[in-house]
């Protein structure tokens, strides 16, 4: 796989750029518009949980926005799901390693995520949380989540070629996931007897890790890091295996 990527890096980058251009409608203003969604979410959810639910968490908007941005990264899988079917003409007409389509789609999501984290780092002090040197660990989590997102995207994009209801199913999964991931509440809210079950959600490991280094300014545990490492690699291997298994018939099925 590494070989394919290096050989086709121009193509991957080009396709990712296309995605970004379409997402941001060819303008810097487009990027600002795209920030509107997470910021509005932050405002509304902050209001709801601070004043209606009376959550007693210090700097709740900052707490919340970290969760939202890292969840949005995972939400990119919904776009990557379309990466093969959305390029049906390309797949039907010319041969090239198909994983390039999924990789470039995830790459474009990653670039958006990096930009959003950049804005987040500027926003955090305004919301009362000044960053510490632990920010330097941010790339580690980002890379691990990138690998995880790529693995999931491989599974989704290749299966979507055969099963078109995956898009709807995935929408429901994402909606449920938003509530079953510690985005607007801390892990400590989960009753102990459900915690093991709850932690089967991979995103329940990533979101708190971001929060550790950006919000609590604590180092995440080595155990947490190992789990994230294993999760990403397992998903990448499964994803790539499924993708390669289904790839030969893409041209017939898309």
């Amino acid at each position, binding site marked *: 796989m590494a070989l394919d990527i290096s*050989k*086709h890096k*121009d*193509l991957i980058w*080009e*396709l990712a750029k*296309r995605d970004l251009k*379409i997402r941001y409608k060819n303008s810097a203003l487009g990027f600002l518009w795209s920030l509107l969604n997470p910021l509005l979410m932050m405002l509304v959810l902050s209001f709801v949980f601070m004043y209606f639910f009376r959550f007693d968490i210090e700097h709740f908007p900052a707490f919340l926005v970290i969760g939202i941005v890292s969840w949005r990264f995972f939400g990119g899988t919904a776009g990557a799901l379309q990466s093969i079917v959305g*390029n049906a*003409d*390309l*797949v*039907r*007409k*010319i*041969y*090239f390693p198909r994983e390039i389509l999924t990789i470039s789609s995830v790459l474009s999501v990653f670039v958006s995520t990096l930009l959003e984290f950049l804005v987040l780092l500027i926003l955090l002090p305004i919301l009362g949380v000044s960053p510490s040197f632990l920010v330097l660990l941010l790339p580690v989590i980002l890379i691990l989540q990138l690998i995880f997102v790529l693995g999931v995207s491989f599974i989704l994009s290749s*299966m979507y070629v*055969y*099963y*078109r*209801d*995956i898009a709807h*199913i995935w929408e429901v999964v994402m909606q449920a996931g938003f509530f079953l991931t510690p985005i607007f509440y801390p892990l400590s809210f989960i009753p102990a007897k459900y915690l093991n079950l709850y932690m089967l959600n991979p995103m329940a490991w990533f979101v708190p890790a971001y929060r550790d280094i950006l919000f609590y300014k604590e180092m995440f545990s080595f155990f947490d890091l190992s789990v994230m490492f294993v999760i990403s690699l397992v998903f990448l291997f499964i994803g790539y295996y499924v993708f390669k298994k289904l790839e*030969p*018939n893409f*041209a*017939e099925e898309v």
Partner: protein
Amino acid sequence: MNAIEANNVWKKFKIPHEKRDTLVENAAGFIKGEKATYEEFWALKNINFNVKEGECIGIIGENGSGKSTLLRIISNILPINKGNVKVRGSVGPFLELGTGFRGDLTAKENVYLYGYVIGLKKKQIDNVIDNIFEFAELERFRDMKLKDFSSGMNMRLAFSTAISTNPDILLIDEVLAVGDESFQRKCMDKIMEFKSEGKTIVFVSHSLESVKNLCSRGIWLNKGIIETQGSVDQVIDYYVGSIRKKEEEELLEEHKKTEEKIKVKEGEKEKPKKEEKPKNRWGSGEIEITEVKFFNKEGKECHVFETGESMKVKLKYDVKERIKNPLFRAQIYKIDGTFCHGTNTDRHDIKLGKLIGENSMGINYNELNLLPGTYLYTVGVWPNEQSKKPYDNHDKMYKFIIKEKKVKPAKSVGISVIPHEWILSEK
């Protein structure tokens, strides 16, 4: 060196009886224990051929014979079930009707995208992009979205992109079918130029003329099997011969059906049902034409002739009541209704005298100087030339086909052969 080697290639398509393309349907089927059933369809069976470097090979065959599937396999788009295909060198895109990658991008962006897909660098694409648009005659439409292109524009862009990126092997599937004549010629010239540069070309076309001009070798694919391969002239001759045989069989079948319709009327003469009467037959019925058959010069029943060949038409008729000097008329129409030729017994001063009972007659066309096409034949028997009411008239009920001559083709269009030649330096 072989540019393409195909050994014992088999390709199967699955045609599901009931398409299940959702996870839910599949899961439901699995729980109910119903296996998804499908029919297997072998699109290609035991395909063996080689294409040498710099060779130009033509693939011919009827629709659905597996030609496009074969090209897709060569370009590595479709997997095969058995055998192996080796390709040496870069393969151009699979050129077919409606080529285009992404409708939501502009023409220029599509060209770049295509360039990146085949592994070109931005600089390399920059260098050829002007040529591409110039050749395609689409300079003004660079920034138009591809979805707004007509199919002809699309094809032009695809063709010039494919040509300009200079692949080692060019696969062409019937692209010359669209586009105006001048562009077709331009493409053909470009393909010839490509050929002279020693590139390998696989050319799929229904235009046997272009296959003959371009290719030295041919393959005839018939229902997924290589029927024959070899020198292009031989393959085409064999193919044309078989097509002709098939057409002949079809026309014979049609002719028989027409004859049956006539018989029905005869049998039910007592109470003729209007709705069962063939539409294009009418007449008072004192004389009935009971059989019309076409024969070739060997005296064999035949419906496919070559321009200039002889044709004999034999009629049988039945005179119910004694009739004096009826007039027989025979006419040839083109399939679009154009009247090509007519003759009758009066014009030839033939007096048939007093007739009764079953009888027969024939018309001999010594030279059928009609140009290739489908023709309809009318025969009728009338009281006289001016009469409006025939005894029996079979209007355009019989069909025959004229084919181009194999030797000395007429090289003309229209209705009839008019011998001519072009003189280039006439003052």
